[in-house]
């Protein structure tokens, strides 16, 4: 078992079947989730049909934050123990998390226009999520902008760990400051403030996004591990010549 994570060459054998399984589960869950979201869930007493944007917006926001925490954690293990697979996992996850964050921002904007009356405002919640997106972008850019890839890895890993501070700011921004964005519905202490018929599509969509992430992560992890092997080979042949 230990060998599986320490030795990348060994790990690669397991990744291909894993990616197909995750992909199949993701497709099934997305189908069920979208059917619930668009056909089998009630309208909201205030927002009418526009509430259906929530089933895309909220899970992608959770994914954006969750994947960032995953990247920072893997980077931490990479930095501390010099672990090859940890760095590769972080690098594989970054563009996926950036995409989920972008989906969150765009769908939120499309939701804000009819409900609030504006596409964008600089309130604490919206701004901190935009900063999260910028952290993703800078992580990706810095991890690729050194000719020695292990140097870029270390630099961007530090950056991702520093960006971890942003996550509690996003979470508590709606409680601590006055914002246009409403406070959390699900993690509210006491009675849940979302009706169960709306909670079902939300939860299914969240799990389908998790499996989309896992599928893409496994596919991209193979790519990162192969890339790393090529990089090492190039460096070796460069040193020999």
């Amino acid at each position, binding site marked *: 078992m230990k060998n599986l994570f320490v030795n990348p060459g060994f790990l690669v054998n397991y990744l291909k079947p894993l990616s197909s399984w995750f992909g199949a589960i993701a497709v099934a869950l997305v189908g069920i989730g979208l059917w619930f979201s668009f056909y089998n869930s*009630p*309208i*909201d*007493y*205030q*927002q009418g049909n526009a*509430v259906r944007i*929530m089933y895309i917006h909220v899970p992608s926001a959770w994914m954006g934050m969750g994947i960032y925490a995953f990247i920072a954690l893997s980077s*931490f293990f990479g*930095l*501390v*123990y010099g672990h090859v697979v940890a760095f590769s996992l972080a690098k594989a996850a970054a563009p996926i998390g950036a995409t989920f964050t972008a989906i969150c921002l765009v769908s939120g904007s499309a939701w804000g226009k*009819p*409900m*609030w*009356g*504006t596409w964008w*405002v*600089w*309130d*604490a919640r919206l701004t901190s999520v935009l900063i999260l997106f910028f952290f993703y972008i800078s992580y990706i850019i810095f991890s690729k902008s050194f000719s020695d890839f292990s140097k870029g890895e270390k630099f961007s890993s*530090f950056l991702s*760990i*520093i960006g*971890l*501070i942003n996550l509690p*700011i996003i979470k508590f921004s709606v409680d601590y*400051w*006055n*914002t*246009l964005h*409403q*406070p*959390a*519905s699900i993690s*509210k202490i006491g009675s849940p*403030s*979302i*009706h169960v*018929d*709306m909670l079902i599509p939300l939860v299914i969509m969240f799990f389908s996004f998790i499996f989309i992430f896992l599928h893409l992560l496994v596919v991209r992890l193979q790519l990162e591990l192969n890339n790393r092997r090529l990089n090492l080979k190039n460096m070796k042949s460069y040193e020999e010549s």
Partner: protein
Amino acid sequence: MNKSKDRIIMISFLLIVSATSLFLILFALRDNVIFFYSPSEVQKKFYNNEINNESLVRLGGLVLDKSLHRDKEGNIYFIITDLKKEINVLFSGILPDLFREGQGVIAQGYVEKYNLKDDNDLLENNLRLRASSVLAKHDENYMPPEVLDILEGVSTNDG
């Protein structure tokens, strides 16, 4: 093993230092980070001369029940309250869909003093926000309309 221990200490130190400094910055800038002021805050700031009729402010609160009305020129008058203080708002433009009495809204504009002869304003104090834009907040409650009917039925039975 010793090396990785050193790294853990270094990373934790870095994280704690930057988190603390960021916390201090945000704490100091709290007045600028918040998106809107409540009517109480606006009144206090206006009379303390922290804001005047040239400073653009955002005022947030609930639209007072039965305060919304329009005049012939299409101007919209309503009152924003935080259940302690109230401020008149004058606005001409398109209101967002969710705007209604009792709803949370945010109006952006300039605060001005005005004389009480203007009979379109219901409130007896002399501060008014001349709003250039009005945004609607929505709350964190999501439910189908039928459920709201049931809930309201219960609460009226109780009262």
